[in-house]
Protein backbone atom coordinates (compact mmCIF):
# COMPACT_ATOMS: atom_id res chain seq x y z
CA UNK A 1 0.00 0.00 0.00
CA UNK A 2 2.85 2.33 0.86
CA UNK A 3 4.49 1.60 -2.47
CA UNK A 4 1.39 2.63 -4.36
CA UNK A 5 1.19 5.90 -2.51
CA UNK A 6 4.85 6.59 -3.10
CA UNK A 7 4.34 6.25 -6.83
CA UNK A 8 1.83 9.05 -6.75
CA UNK A 9 3.82 11.18 -4.37
CA UNK A 10 6.20 13.06 -6.72
CA UNK A 11 3.28 15.01 -8.16
CA UNK A 12 2.21 16.18 -4.67
CA UNK A 13 5.27 17.38 -2.82
CA UNK A 14 3.18 19.19 -0.21
CA UNK A 15 1.54 15.92 0.76
CA UNK A 16 4.89 14.26 1.38
CA UNK A 17 6.03 16.99 3.77
CA UNK A 18 2.86 17.42 5.73
CA UNK A 19 3.32 16.47 9.39
CA UNK A 20 0.58 14.00 10.18
CA UNK A 21 1.80 12.63 13.49
CA UNK A 22 4.10 13.82 16.23
CA UNK A 23 5.07 12.48 19.61
CA UNK A 24 3.21 14.61 22.18
CA UNK A 25 5.52 17.08 23.94
CA UNK A 26 4.21 15.72 27.24
CA UNK A 27 5.86 12.37 26.47
CA UNK A 28 9.62 11.93 26.73
CA UNK A 29 11.52 10.72 23.68
CA UNK A 30 12.49 7.35 25.10
CA UNK A 31 11.26 3.82 24.49
CA UNK A 32 8.93 2.34 27.10
CA UNK A 33 9.45 -1.02 28.76
CA UNK A 34 5.91 -2.16 28.01
CA UNK A 35 5.44 -5.53 26.31
CA UNK A 36 4.51 -5.67 22.62
CA UNK A 37 0.77 -5.27 22.21
CA UNK A 38 0.19 -3.90 25.70
CA UNK A 39 -2.11 -0.89 25.65
CA UNK A 40 -0.38 1.03 28.46
CA UNK A 41 1.69 2.82 25.82
CA UNK A 42 -1.43 3.77 23.90
CA UNK A 43 -3.07 5.14 27.04
CA UNK A 44 0.09 7.11 27.85
CA UNK A 45 -0.09 8.59 24.37
CA UNK A 46 -3.72 9.62 24.80
CA UNK A 47 -2.94 11.29 28.12
CA UNK A 48 0.11 13.00 26.63
CA UNK A 49 -1.90 14.33 23.71
CA UNK A 50 -4.59 15.70 26.01
CA UNK A 51 -1.98 17.37 28.25
CA UNK A 52 -0.55 19.04 25.13
CA UNK A 53 -3.94 20.06 23.82
CA UNK A 54 -4.94 21.58 27.14
CA UNK A 55 -1.57 23.37 27.44
CA UNK A 56 -0.95 22.09 30.98
CA UNK A 57 2.37 20.24 30.60
CA UNK A 58 4.38 22.77 32.58
CA UNK A 59 2.09 22.60 35.59
CA UNK A 60 1.26 18.91 35.60
CA UNK A 61 2.55 16.51 38.26
CA UNK A 62 2.12 12.78 37.70
CA UNK A 63 1.92 10.20 40.46
CA UNK A 64 3.09 6.76 39.33
CA UNK A 65 1.78 3.55 40.88
CA UNK A 66 3.50 0.33 41.78
CA UNK A 67 2.82 -2.06 38.95
CA UNK A 68 3.61 -2.04 35.23
CA UNK A 69 3.31 1.75 35.06
CA UNK A 70 5.84 2.26 37.85
CA UNK A 71 8.22 4.01 35.43
CA UNK A 72 5.56 6.35 34.14
CA UNK A 73 7.55 9.30 35.48
CA UNK A 74 10.23 8.43 32.94
CA UNK A 75 7.78 8.43 30.04
CA UNK A 76 6.03 11.72 30.73
CA UNK A 77 7.97 14.94 30.42
CA UNK A 78 6.27 16.40 33.49
CA UNK A 79 7.25 16.52 37.16
CA UNK A 80 6.60 13.11 38.66
CA UNK A 81 6.33 11.28 41.95
CA UNK A 82 6.48 7.53 42.50
CA UNK A 83 4.00 6.42 45.17
CA UNK A 84 3.91 3.39 47.43
CA UNK A 85 1.68 0.53 46.24
CA UNK A 86 -1.91 1.72 46.25
CA UNK A 87 -1.15 5.03 47.94
CA UNK A 88 -1.08 7.24 44.85
CA UNK A 89 -4.40 8.93 45.72
CA UNK A 90 -3.06 9.84 49.19
CA UNK A 91 0.21 11.10 47.75
CA UNK A 92 -1.67 13.07 45.10
CA UNK A 93 -3.85 14.51 47.87
CA UNK A 94 -0.74 15.73 49.68
CA UNK A 95 0.62 17.32 46.51
CA UNK A 96 -2.61 18.92 45.34
CA UNK A 97 -3.51 20.33 48.76
CA UNK A 98 -0.31 22.35 48.92
CA UNK A 99 -0.02 22.99 45.17
CA UNK A 100 -3.61 23.72 44.11
CA UNK A 101 -2.47 25.40 40.89
CA UNK A 102 -0.76 22.26 39.64
CA UNK A 103 -2.63 19.59 37.70
CA UNK A 104 -2.13 16.32 39.55
CA UNK A 105 -2.97 12.93 38.13
CA UNK A 106 -2.49 9.37 39.28
CA UNK A 107 -2.29 6.36 36.98
CA UNK A 108 -3.06 3.09 38.71
CA UNK A 109 -3.56 -0.53 37.81
CA UNK A 110 -6.19 -2.87 39.16
CA UNK A 111 -4.05 -4.42 41.89
CA UNK A 112 -2.77 -1.04 42.95
CA UNK A 113 -6.16 0.62 43.17
CA UNK A 114 -8.81 -2.06 43.65
CA UNK A 115 -6.88 -4.27 46.05
CA UNK A 116 -4.14 -2.73 48.18
CA UNK A 117 -5.16 0.87 47.55
CA UNK A 118 -8.90 0.53 48.06
CA UNK A 119 -9.03 2.72 51.16
CA UNK A 120 -7.00 5.52 49.60
CA UNK A 121 -9.06 5.72 46.40
CA UNK A 122 -12.39 5.52 48.25
CA UNK A 123 -11.37 8.38 50.51
CA UNK A 124 -9.86 10.54 47.80
CA UNK A 125 -13.17 10.22 45.94
CA UNK A 126 -15.20 10.75 49.10
CA UNK A 127 -13.37 13.97 49.90
CA UNK A 128 -13.84 15.07 46.32
CA UNK A 129 -10.11 15.61 45.96
CA UNK A 130 -9.50 17.82 42.97
CA UNK A 131 -7.32 15.25 41.21
CA UNK A 132 -7.57 13.20 38.04
CA UNK A 133 -7.26 9.43 38.25
CA UNK A 134 -6.66 6.95 35.44
CA UNK A 135 -7.55 3.42 36.41
CA UNK A 136 -6.06 0.92 33.99
CA UNK A 137 -7.93 -2.35 34.36
CA UNK A 138 -6.37 -5.32 32.62
CA UNK A 139 -7.75 -7.95 34.98
CA UNK A 140 -4.32 -9.22 36.03
CA UNK A 141 -1.17 -8.39 37.98
CA UNK A 142 1.15 -7.60 35.10
CA UNK A 143 4.44 -6.65 36.69
CA UNK A 144 4.68 -9.64 39.02
CA UNK A 145 4.00 -11.95 36.12
CA UNK A 146 0.29 -12.58 35.86
CA UNK A 147 -1.38 -13.32 39.16
CA UNK A 148 -5.08 -13.01 39.93
CA UNK A 149 -6.23 -9.39 40.27
CA UNK A 150 -9.30 -8.05 42.08
CA UNK A 151 -10.71 -7.51 38.59
CA UNK A 152 -9.81 -10.93 37.13
CA UNK A 153 -12.90 -12.47 35.60
CA UNK A 154 -14.66 -15.56 37.01
CA UNK A 155 -12.84 -18.62 35.72
CA UNK A 156 -9.88 -16.59 34.45
CA UNK A 157 -6.70 -18.64 34.58
CA UNK A 158 -3.80 -16.74 36.14
CA UNK A 159 -0.56 -17.55 37.92
CA UNK A 160 -2.35 -17.66 41.25
CA UNK A 161 -5.64 -19.12 40.01
CA UNK A 162 -4.29 -21.99 37.89
CA UNK A 163 -7.71 -23.65 37.72
CA UNK A 164 -9.48 -20.42 36.93
CA UNK A 165 -10.73 -17.76 39.36
CA UNK A 166 -13.00 -19.52 41.82
CA UNK A 167 -15.47 -16.87 42.88
CA UNK A 168 -16.75 -19.10 45.69
CA UNK A 169 -13.34 -18.67 47.28
CA UNK A 170 -12.30 -15.19 46.12
CA UNK A 171 -15.56 -13.35 45.57
CA UNK A 172 -16.59 -11.69 42.35
CA UNK A 173 -14.39 -9.17 40.55
CA UNK A 174 -14.77 -5.58 41.69
CA UNK A 175 -16.38 -3.00 39.43
CA UNK A 176 -14.52 0.14 40.47
CA UNK A 177 -16.33 2.69 38.33
CA UNK A 178 -19.70 1.58 39.67
CA UNK A 179 -18.38 1.52 43.23
CA UNK A 180 -16.81 4.98 43.12
CA UNK A 181 -19.75 6.50 41.26
CA UNK A 182 -21.84 5.77 44.33
CA UNK A 183 -19.79 8.17 46.43
CA UNK A 184 -21.21 11.67 46.75
CA UNK A 185 -17.73 13.25 46.51
CA UNK A 186 -16.97 11.92 43.02
CA UNK A 187 -17.73 14.35 40.18
CA UNK A 188 -16.83 12.37 37.10
CA UNK A 189 -16.54 8.59 36.90
CA UNK A 190 -16.64 6.80 33.57
CA UNK A 191 -15.44 3.55 32.01
CA UNK A 192 -13.87 3.38 28.59
CA UNK A 193 -11.82 0.86 26.63
CA UNK A 194 -9.02 1.00 24.10
CA UNK A 195 -9.67 -2.15 22.07
CA UNK A 196 -10.56 -0.45 18.77
CA UNK A 197 -10.50 2.95 17.06
CA UNK A 198 -13.95 3.91 18.24
CA UNK A 199 -13.31 3.14 21.92
CA UNK A 200 -9.89 4.81 21.75
CA UNK A 201 -11.50 8.02 20.52
CA UNK A 202 -14.08 7.86 23.31
CA UNK A 203 -11.34 7.18 25.83
CA UNK A 204 -9.40 10.24 24.75
CA UNK A 205 -12.49 12.40 25.08
CA UNK A 206 -13.05 11.13 28.63
CA UNK A 207 -9.40 11.71 29.53
CA UNK A 208 -9.80 15.27 28.31
CA UNK A 209 -12.95 15.80 30.37
CA UNK A 210 -11.27 14.29 33.46
CA UNK A 211 -8.49 16.89 33.24
CA UNK A 212 -10.95 19.69 32.53
CA UNK A 213 -12.85 18.77 35.70
CA UNK A 214 -9.69 19.35 37.71
CA UNK A 215 -8.78 22.51 35.82
CA UNK A 216 -12.19 23.91 36.74
CA UNK A 217 -11.71 22.90 40.37
CA UNK A 218 -14.76 20.69 40.01
CA UNK A 219 -13.53 17.76 42.08
CA UNK A 220 -12.67 14.10 41.74
CA UNK A 221 -12.50 12.64 38.23
CA UNK A 222 -11.72 9.05 37.32
CA UNK A 223 -11.52 7.29 33.99
CA UNK A 224 -11.39 3.51 34.12
CA UNK A 225 -9.76 2.11 31.00
CA UNK A 226 -10.06 -1.54 30.00
CA UNK A 227 -6.58 -2.48 28.85
CA UNK A 228 -4.83 -5.50 27.42
CA UNK A 229 -2.07 -7.72 28.77
CA UNK A 230 -1.12 -10.09 25.92
CA UNK A 231 1.94 -11.39 27.77
CA UNK A 232 0.16 -12.54 30.90
CA UNK A 233 -3.09 -13.39 29.18
CA UNK A 234 -0.87 -15.57 26.99
CA UNK A 235 -2.35 -14.51 23.66
CA UNK A 236 -1.46 -12.37 20.65
CA UNK A 237 -1.90 -8.62 20.71
CA UNK A 238 -4.81 -8.87 18.28
CA UNK A 239 -6.49 -11.65 20.25
CA UNK A 240 -6.11 -9.69 23.46
CA UNK A 241 -8.06 -6.78 22.00
CA UNK A 242 -10.81 -9.19 21.01
CA UNK A 243 -10.66 -10.66 24.51
CA UNK A 244 -11.34 -7.23 26.02
CA UNK A 245 -14.35 -6.82 23.79
CA UNK A 246 -15.76 -10.29 24.28
CA UNK A 247 -14.93 -10.96 27.92
CA UNK A 248 -14.21 -7.75 29.78
CA UNK A 249 -16.76 -5.36 28.29
CA UNK A 250 -19.74 -7.61 29.17
CA UNK A 251 -18.68 -7.66 32.85
CA UNK A 252 -17.35 -4.09 32.85
CA UNK A 253 -19.84 -2.19 30.69
CA UNK A 254 -18.53 1.00 29.11
CA UNK A 255 -20.35 4.16 30.00
CA UNK A 256 -20.70 7.21 32.20
CA UNK A 257 -21.33 6.22 35.81
CA UNK A 258 -21.25 9.63 37.41
CA UNK A 259 -21.34 12.95 35.68
CA UNK A 260 -22.13 15.55 38.31
CA UNK A 261 -24.06 18.64 37.32
CA UNK A 262 -20.91 20.72 37.67
CA UNK A 263 -19.25 18.55 35.01
CA UNK A 264 -22.24 18.79 32.67
CA UNK A 265 -21.97 22.56 32.90
CA UNK A 266 -18.30 22.27 31.92
CA UNK A 267 -19.13 20.18 28.90
CA UNK A 268 -21.78 22.61 27.74
CA UNK A 269 -19.37 25.47 28.09
CA UNK A 270 -16.89 23.61 25.93
CA UNK A 271 -19.39 23.03 23.11
Amino acid sequence: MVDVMMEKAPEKVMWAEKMVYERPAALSDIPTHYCPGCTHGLIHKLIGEVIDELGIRQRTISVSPVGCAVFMYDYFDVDGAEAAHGRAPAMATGIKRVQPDNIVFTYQGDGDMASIGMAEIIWAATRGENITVFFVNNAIYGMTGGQMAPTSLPGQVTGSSPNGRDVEMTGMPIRMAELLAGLPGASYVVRRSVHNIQTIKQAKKAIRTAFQVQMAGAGFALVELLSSCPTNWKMTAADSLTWIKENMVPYYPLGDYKVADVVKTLNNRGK
Partner: protein
Amino acid sequence: MAKELLKGNVAIAEAAVRAGLQAYFGYPITPQTELLEHMSARMPELGRTFLQAESEVAAINMVYGAASTGVRVMTSSSGPGISLMQEGLSYIAGSEVPAVIVDIMRGGPGLGNIQPAQSDYNQITKSAGHGDFRPIVLAPGTVQEAIDHTVLAFDLADKYRTLVFVAGDGMIGQIMEPAELPPMRQPAQTRPAWALTGADNRPKNVVSSLYLGAEKLEALNKRLQAKLQQIKENEVRFEAINTADADIVIVAFGTAGRIAKTAVTEARRQGLRVGLFRPVTLFPFPSSQLEKLAARTKAMLVVEMNAGQMVDDVKLAVNGKTPVQFYGRTGGAVALPDEILDQIILLDKRYPAKKATPNGQGVVISVA
Protein backbone atom coordinates in the same frame (compact mmCIF):
# COMPACT_ATOMS: atom_id res chain seq x y z
CA MET B 1 7.90 36.05 74.27
CA ALA B 2 6.71 35.30 77.76
CA LYS B 3 6.29 31.90 79.27
CA GLU B 4 2.80 30.47 79.29
CA LEU B 5 1.23 27.35 80.68
CA LEU B 6 1.17 24.88 77.82
CA LYS B 7 0.22 21.27 77.31
CA GLY B 8 2.97 19.32 75.56
CA ASN B 9 0.92 18.25 72.55
CA VAL B 10 -0.42 21.74 71.98
CA ALA B 11 3.02 23.26 72.47
CA ILE B 12 4.52 20.96 69.82
CA ALA B 13 1.71 21.78 67.41
CA GLU B 14 2.03 25.53 67.88
CA ALA B 15 5.82 25.35 67.67
CA ALA B 16 5.48 23.55 64.33
CA VAL B 17 3.05 26.19 63.09
CA ARG B 18 5.54 28.89 64.07
CA ALA B 19 8.39 27.01 62.40
CA GLY B 20 6.68 27.60 59.06
CA LEU B 21 4.66 24.41 58.76
CA GLN B 22 2.70 24.46 55.51
CA ALA B 23 0.74 21.23 55.85
CA TYR B 24 -0.29 18.76 58.53
CA PHE B 25 -1.85 15.36 57.89
CA GLY B 26 -2.77 13.05 60.74
CA TYR B 27 -5.11 10.58 62.32
CA PRO B 28 -6.40 10.70 65.91
CA ILE B 29 -4.64 8.48 68.42
CA THR B 30 -4.16 8.85 72.16
CA PRO B 31 -2.00 10.27 73.70
CA GLN B 32 -1.25 12.76 70.89
CA THR B 33 -4.73 13.78 69.77
CA GLU B 34 -4.57 17.35 71.14
CA LEU B 35 -1.79 17.96 68.67
CA LEU B 36 -4.05 17.09 65.74
CA GLU B 37 -6.91 19.06 67.26
CA HIS B 38 -4.76 22.16 67.60
CA MET B 39 -3.71 21.83 63.96
CA SER B 40 -7.33 21.46 62.84
CA ALA B 41 -8.08 24.94 64.16
CA ARG B 42 -4.78 26.75 63.59
CA MET B 43 -3.78 25.65 60.11
CA PRO B 44 -6.97 26.71 58.28
CA GLU B 45 -6.96 29.95 60.29
CA LEU B 46 -3.57 30.73 58.74
CA GLY B 47 -4.61 29.60 55.27
CA ARG B 48 -2.46 26.49 55.49
CA THR B 49 -3.31 22.83 54.97
CA PHE B 50 -4.84 20.56 57.60
CA LEU B 51 -6.37 17.23 56.69
CA GLN B 52 -7.55 14.41 58.91
CA ALA B 53 -6.64 11.34 56.90
CA GLU B 54 -8.58 8.08 56.76
CA SER B 55 -5.69 6.20 58.34
CA GLU B 56 -2.07 6.61 59.35
CA VAL B 57 -1.20 4.83 56.10
CA ALA B 58 -2.89 7.60 54.13
CA ALA B 59 -1.59 10.34 56.44
CA ILE B 60 2.07 9.45 55.89
CA ASN B 61 1.56 9.18 52.14
CA MET B 62 -0.07 12.61 52.13
CA VAL B 63 2.99 13.81 54.02
CA TYR B 64 5.12 12.14 51.34
CA GLY B 65 3.20 13.96 48.61
CA ALA B 66 3.40 17.37 50.27
CA ALA B 67 7.06 16.83 51.17
CA SER B 68 7.74 16.16 47.48
CA THR B 69 6.74 19.75 46.74
CA GLY B 70 9.37 21.05 49.17
CA VAL B 71 7.09 22.52 51.84
CA ARG B 72 7.42 21.98 55.59
CA VAL B 73 5.07 19.14 56.45
CA MET B 74 4.51 16.90 59.44
CA THR B 75 2.34 14.26 61.02
CA SER B 76 2.01 12.98 64.56
CA SER B 77 0.99 9.67 66.02
CA SER B 78 1.73 7.03 68.62
CA GLY B 79 3.09 3.47 68.43
CA PRO B 80 0.24 1.68 66.64
CA GLY B 81 0.01 4.53 64.14
CA ILE B 82 3.76 4.72 63.66
CA SER B 83 3.71 1.01 62.80
CA LEU B 84 1.21 1.75 60.04
CA MET B 85 3.35 4.62 58.78
CA GLN B 86 6.47 2.54 58.32
CA GLU B 87 5.81 1.88 54.64
CA GLY B 88 5.55 5.58 53.88
CA LEU B 89 8.50 6.42 56.10
CA SER B 90 10.68 4.11 54.06
CA TYR B 91 9.57 5.73 50.78
CA ILE B 92 10.21 9.19 52.21
CA ALA B 93 13.68 8.11 53.29
CA GLY B 94 14.42 6.51 49.91
CA SER B 95 13.23 9.62 48.07
CA GLU B 96 15.23 11.95 50.33
CA VAL B 97 12.41 14.38 50.96
CA PRO B 98 12.29 16.17 54.33
CA ALA B 99 9.50 15.47 56.81
CA VAL B 100 8.92 15.71 60.55
CA ILE B 101 7.15 12.97 62.52
CA VAL B 102 6.06 13.34 66.13
CA ASP B 103 5.72 10.10 68.07
CA ILE B 104 4.07 10.50 71.46
CA MET B 105 4.86 7.02 72.71
CA ARG B 106 2.45 4.80 74.63
CA GLY B 107 2.64 1.33 76.11
CA GLY B 108 2.86 -1.67 73.77
CA PRO B 109 3.00 -4.14 72.12
CA GLY B 110 -0.25 -4.39 70.18
CA LEU B 111 -2.95 -2.04 71.25
CA GLY B 112 -1.15 -1.89 74.58
CA ASN B 113 -2.54 1.08 76.40
CA ILE B 114 -2.49 4.86 76.37
CA GLN B 115 -0.10 5.37 79.27
CA PRO B 116 3.31 6.96 78.73
CA ALA B 117 6.11 4.67 77.56
CA GLN B 118 9.34 4.70 75.60
CA SER B 119 8.74 1.42 73.89
CA ASP B 120 9.15 2.72 70.32
CA TYR B 121 12.87 3.41 70.81
CA ASN B 122 14.05 0.52 68.66
CA GLN B 123 11.31 1.08 66.11
CA ILE B 124 12.12 4.71 65.39
CA THR B 125 15.88 4.73 65.88
CA LYS B 126 16.70 1.48 64.11
CA SER B 127 13.75 0.11 62.23
CA ALA B 128 11.40 2.84 61.03
CA GLY B 129 10.72 0.90 57.84
CA HIS B 130 12.19 -1.56 55.35
CA GLY B 131 15.62 -0.94 53.88
CA ASP B 132 18.69 0.88 55.19
CA PHE B 133 17.78 4.23 56.64
CA ARG B 134 17.68 5.95 60.00
CA PRO B 135 15.79 9.08 60.92
CA ILE B 136 17.23 11.75 63.19
CA VAL B 137 15.45 11.24 66.54
CA LEU B 138 15.09 14.02 69.11
CA ALA B 139 13.90 13.14 72.62
CA PRO B 140 12.53 16.06 74.64
CA GLY B 141 12.29 15.84 78.42
CA THR B 142 10.22 18.96 79.04
CA VAL B 143 7.55 20.94 77.24
CA GLN B 144 10.12 23.67 76.54
CA GLU B 145 12.43 21.15 75.01
CA ALA B 146 9.57 19.68 72.98
CA ILE B 147 9.00 23.15 71.53
CA ASP B 148 12.67 23.69 70.80
CA HIS B 149 13.06 20.21 69.30
CA THR B 150 10.09 20.72 67.02
CA VAL B 151 11.63 23.85 65.52
CA LEU B 152 15.03 22.16 65.30
CA ALA B 153 13.42 19.12 63.65
CA PHE B 154 12.27 21.18 60.67
CA ASP B 155 15.65 22.83 60.28
CA LEU B 156 17.44 19.47 60.38
CA ALA B 157 14.92 17.85 58.02
CA ASP B 158 15.50 20.59 55.45
CA LYS B 159 19.25 20.70 55.97
CA TYR B 160 19.79 16.99 55.41
CA ARG B 161 16.67 16.20 53.34
CA THR B 162 15.81 13.55 55.86
CA LEU B 163 13.16 12.29 58.24
CA VAL B 164 13.29 13.73 61.72
CA PHE B 165 11.35 12.29 64.64
CA VAL B 166 10.40 14.17 67.76
CA ALA B 167 10.02 11.29 70.17
CA GLY B 168 8.08 12.21 73.25
CA ASP B 169 6.06 9.97 75.48
CA GLY B 170 2.55 10.25 76.86
CA MET B 171 3.88 12.27 79.76
CA ILE B 172 5.49 14.89 77.51
CA GLY B 173 2.35 15.04 75.40
CA GLN B 174 -0.05 15.41 78.31
CA ILE B 175 1.88 17.41 80.89
CA MET B 176 1.22 21.12 81.32
CA GLU B 177 4.06 23.40 82.32
CA PRO B 178 5.34 26.91 81.67
CA ALA B 179 7.20 27.25 78.40
CA GLU B 180 8.00 29.84 75.80
CA LEU B 181 6.93 29.54 72.19
CA PRO B 182 9.17 30.74 69.37
CA PRO B 183 8.32 33.75 67.21
CA MET B 184 6.21 33.11 64.12
CA ARG B 185 8.09 32.20 60.96
CA GLN B 186 6.11 32.24 57.73
CA PRO B 187 6.34 29.22 55.42
CA ALA B 188 9.08 29.69 52.84
CA GLN B 189 7.93 31.44 49.69
CA THR B 190 10.45 29.64 47.51
CA ARG B 191 10.83 25.92 46.91
CA PRO B 192 14.02 23.86 46.69
CA ALA B 193 15.32 23.10 43.20
CA TRP B 194 14.38 19.41 43.47
CA ALA B 195 10.74 20.01 44.44
CA LEU B 196 7.74 19.01 42.34
CA THR B 197 6.14 22.28 41.29
CA GLY B 198 5.64 21.70 37.57
CA ALA B 199 8.34 21.55 34.90
CA ASP B 200 7.91 25.19 33.98
CA ASN B 201 10.94 26.34 32.00
CA ARG B 202 13.16 23.77 33.64
CA PRO B 203 13.82 20.04 33.20
CA LYS B 204 11.31 17.85 35.00
CA ASN B 205 11.88 16.80 38.60
CA VAL B 206 11.20 13.28 39.83
CA VAL B 207 10.68 12.14 43.41
CA SER B 208 11.11 8.39 43.57
CA SER B 209 12.69 5.70 45.71
CA LEU B 210 12.94 3.28 42.79
CA TYR B 211 16.41 2.41 41.49
CA LEU B 212 16.15 -0.76 39.46
CA GLY B 213 19.85 -1.28 38.76
CA ALA B 214 21.93 -2.70 41.61
CA GLU B 215 24.67 -0.13 41.10
CA LYS B 216 22.20 2.74 41.12
CA LEU B 217 20.52 1.55 44.29
CA GLU B 218 23.86 0.96 45.92
CA ALA B 219 24.85 4.51 44.97
CA LEU B 220 21.72 5.79 46.72
CA ASN B 221 22.54 3.74 49.79
CA LYS B 222 26.09 5.03 49.83
CA ARG B 223 24.75 8.57 49.62
CA LEU B 224 22.32 7.90 52.48
CA GLN B 225 25.08 6.38 54.59
CA ALA B 226 27.39 9.31 53.89
CA LYS B 227 24.62 11.62 55.00
CA LEU B 228 24.16 9.60 58.20
CA GLN B 229 27.89 9.86 58.83
CA GLN B 230 27.67 13.63 58.46
CA ILE B 231 24.72 13.66 60.85
CA LYS B 232 26.66 11.55 63.35
CA GLU B 233 29.55 14.00 63.19
CA ASN B 234 27.50 17.17 63.51
CA GLU B 235 24.21 16.58 65.24
CA VAL B 236 24.87 14.65 68.45
CA ARG B 237 23.12 16.31 71.36
CA PHE B 238 23.07 15.31 75.01
CA GLU B 239 22.91 16.72 78.50
CA ALA B 240 25.38 15.69 81.21
CA ILE B 241 24.62 16.59 84.79
CA ASN B 242 27.17 16.06 87.56
CA THR B 243 29.07 13.53 85.49
CA ALA B 244 32.46 15.17 86.15
CA ASP B 245 33.14 13.28 89.36
CA ALA B 246 30.47 10.62 89.11
CA ASP B 247 31.12 7.05 90.20
CA ILE B 248 27.79 6.03 88.81
CA VAL B 249 26.19 7.54 85.73
CA ILE B 250 22.54 7.11 84.99
CA VAL B 251 21.68 7.09 81.30
CA ALA B 252 18.08 7.99 80.57
CA PHE B 253 16.18 10.02 77.98
CA GLY B 254 12.94 11.97 77.89
CA THR B 255 10.63 11.57 80.86
CA ALA B 256 12.80 8.81 82.35
CA GLY B 257 15.72 11.25 82.24
CA ARG B 258 13.66 13.86 84.01
CA ILE B 259 12.73 11.47 86.81
CA ALA B 260 16.31 10.24 87.04
CA LYS B 261 17.40 13.84 87.58
CA THR B 262 15.40 13.89 90.81
CA ALA B 263 17.00 10.60 91.87
CA VAL B 264 20.46 12.05 91.19
CA THR B 265 19.70 15.08 93.35
CA GLU B 266 18.64 12.83 96.21
CA ALA B 267 21.66 10.56 95.76
CA ARG B 268 24.00 13.56 95.89
CA ARG B 269 22.24 14.73 99.03
CA GLN B 270 23.05 11.34 100.52
CA GLY B 271 26.70 11.77 99.55
CA LEU B 272 26.75 9.42 96.55
CA ARG B 273 28.68 10.61 93.51
CA VAL B 274 26.05 10.10 90.87
CA GLY B 275 25.56 11.85 87.55
CA LEU B 276 23.03 11.84 84.76
CA PHE B 277 23.76 11.46 81.08
CA ARG B 278 20.70 12.23 78.99
CA PRO B 279 20.86 11.55 75.26
CA VAL B 280 18.90 14.28 73.51
CA THR B 281 19.45 12.82 70.06
CA LEU B 282 18.60 9.11 70.17
CA PHE B 283 19.93 8.98 66.64
CA PRO B 284 22.68 10.02 66.26
CA PHE B 285 23.40 8.37 69.60
CA PRO B 286 26.06 10.08 71.75
CA SER B 287 28.22 6.96 71.75
CA SER B 288 31.69 8.47 71.96
CA GLN B 289 30.68 10.77 74.82
CA LEU B 290 29.36 7.79 76.75
CA GLU B 291 32.46 5.78 75.96
CA LYS B 292 34.65 8.50 77.45
CA LEU B 293 32.50 8.62 80.58
CA ALA B 294 32.64 4.86 80.89
CA ALA B 295 36.39 4.95 81.37
CA ARG B 296 36.01 6.55 84.79
CA THR B 297 32.66 5.38 86.10
CA LYS B 298 32.37 2.26 88.17
CA ALA B 299 28.98 1.47 86.71
CA MET B 300 26.22 2.82 84.50
CA LEU B 301 22.52 2.49 85.13
CA VAL B 302 20.21 2.73 82.17
CA VAL B 303 16.66 3.70 83.08
CA GLU B 304 13.93 3.45 80.49
CA MET B 305 10.15 3.26 80.26
CA ASN B 306 10.40 0.00 78.33
CA ALA B 307 11.87 -3.47 78.76
CA GLY B 308 15.37 -2.38 77.76
CA GLN B 309 15.97 -0.89 74.34
CA MET B 310 18.41 2.03 74.54
CA VAL B 311 20.48 -0.10 76.92
CA ASP B 312 21.78 -2.00 73.89
CA ASP B 313 23.16 1.21 72.42
CA VAL B 314 24.74 2.13 75.75
CA LYS B 315 26.42 -1.29 75.92
CA LEU B 316 27.70 -0.91 72.36
CA ALA B 317 29.00 2.54 73.21
CA VAL B 318 30.86 1.60 76.39
CA ASN B 319 32.00 -1.69 74.89
CA GLY B 320 32.67 -3.41 78.21
CA LYS B 321 34.58 -0.51 79.76
CA THR B 322 32.10 -0.34 82.62
CA PRO B 323 29.27 -2.57 83.84
CA VAL B 324 25.88 -1.52 82.50
CA GLN B 325 22.77 -2.26 84.53
CA PHE B 326 19.21 -1.76 83.41
CA TYR B 327 16.13 -0.68 85.27
CA GLY B 328 12.87 -0.29 83.40
CA ARG B 329 9.16 -0.14 83.93
CA THR B 330 6.79 -1.12 81.15
CA GLY B 331 3.15 -1.03 80.16
CA GLY B 332 2.76 2.61 81.02
CA ALA B 333 4.17 2.27 84.54
CA VAL B 334 6.66 5.02 85.30
CA ALA B 335 9.53 4.56 87.75
CA LEU B 336 9.49 6.78 90.82
CA PRO B 337 12.70 8.60 91.85
CA ASP B 338 12.90 6.31 94.91
CA GLU B 339 12.96 3.18 92.75
CA ILE B 340 15.88 4.60 90.79
CA LEU B 341 17.63 5.65 93.99
CA ASP B 342 17.35 2.07 95.29
CA GLN B 343 19.06 0.86 92.14
CA ILE B 344 21.81 3.46 92.57
CA ILE B 345 22.46 2.32 96.13
CA LEU B 346 22.61 -1.33 95.04
CA LEU B 347 25.08 -0.49 92.28
CA ASP B 348 27.19 1.64 94.56
CA LYS B 349 27.60 -1.29 96.95
CA ARG B 350 28.20 -3.85 94.24
CA TYR B 351 31.00 -2.15 92.33
CA PRO B 352 34.30 -0.76 93.66
CA ALA B 353 35.21 2.79 92.68
CA LYS B 354 37.47 3.58 89.72
CA LYS B 355 40.07 6.32 89.91
CA ALA B 356 38.50 9.65 89.11
CA THR B 357 39.94 11.43 86.10
CA PRO B 358 39.25 14.98 84.96
CA ASN B 359 36.81 15.42 82.15
CA GLY B 360 35.10 18.06 80.14
CA GLN B 361 32.08 16.18 79.00
CA GLY B 362 28.91 17.84 77.88
CA VAL B 363 26.91 20.50 79.61
CA VAL B 364 27.73 20.18 83.27
CA ILE B 365 24.88 21.44 85.33
CA SER B 366 25.32 21.43 89.08
CA VAL B 367 22.54 20.11 91.20
CA ALA B 368 21.30 22.49 93.88
